[in-house]
């Protein structure tokens, strides 16, 4: 396995789910704020599919990361450890959020939806922290 190749694949695959989860967070928050407006339905739909696409996109990102680190799920380097400590909860939460959102469709109350938006906001923070420490790794292993 060529490590440099997998480093590039990991870099190429991680940014897509990062962007999509930010879009999902934005759309879902806007949908919650404008709950009674006609646009809220479109925003909820956009948020839902963004979250699902982000979860699907996170799978190649995780696989390429594991291949790159040769199966090391945590790592010895402090930056790598922090990257993973944020990445694994983010990945788990992303899958859970996407599955829940995909299955519930439009049957959720506003309160339930607010809870989901809260989870998505936490998830976005976790993803941002994962990306930040991923960037720090580029300095540690240029």
């Amino acid at each position, binding site marked *: 396995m060529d490590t440099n190749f997998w480093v590039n694949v990991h870099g190429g695959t991680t940014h897509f789910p990062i962007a999509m989860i930010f879009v999902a967070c934005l759309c879902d928050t806007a949908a919650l704020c404008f709950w009674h407006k006609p646009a809220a339905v479109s925003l909820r739909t956009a948020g839902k599919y963004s979250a699902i696409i982000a979860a699907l996109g996170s799978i190649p990102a995780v696989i390429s990361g594991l291949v790159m680190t040769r*199966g*090391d799920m945590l790592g010895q380097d*402090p930056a790598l450890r922090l990257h993973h400590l944020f990445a694994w909860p983010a990945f788990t939460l992303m*899958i859970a959020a996407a*599955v*829940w959102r995909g299955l519930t469709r439009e049957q959720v109350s506003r309160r339930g939806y607010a809870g989901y938006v809260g989870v998505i906001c936490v998830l976005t923070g976790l993803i941002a922290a994962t990306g930040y420490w991923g960037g720090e790794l580029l300095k*540690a292993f*240029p």
Partner: protein
Amino acid sequence: MKPLAAFITSVVAAGTALGAAAALAAVLRHQEATHSHELPPYVPPADMASVPHDVLVENGKKLYFENCAHCHGDDAHGDEGPDLHGIWVSDRRISTVIKRGIPDEMPTFATKLHDDDIAGLIAYVRSLD
């Protein structure tokens, strides 16, 4: 599907995804342990081949306390630097990190330590496992 049933399903799905990632990691670690790296393996200096392993480890220990213990701790369980027990990286990787250092993390020892010193350090670090 009702929200509660969807919640239970999502927890199961997330657990399955994390479990699958852990299983893939285990397979990759096993493969890493049993297959050669893409780079040629680390070859210690030729003049070190005749040095008994115990002597090599003892030399490495002395060098460790002179150069590394300050950051990695006297017991090598980590202090400012990481724990060195049971590290999974190859001998080549250890040699490269000692020689080149890590920017903003670890100084380079290329001018201070020679190949035979590094061979001793590698033997000492491996003896910690």
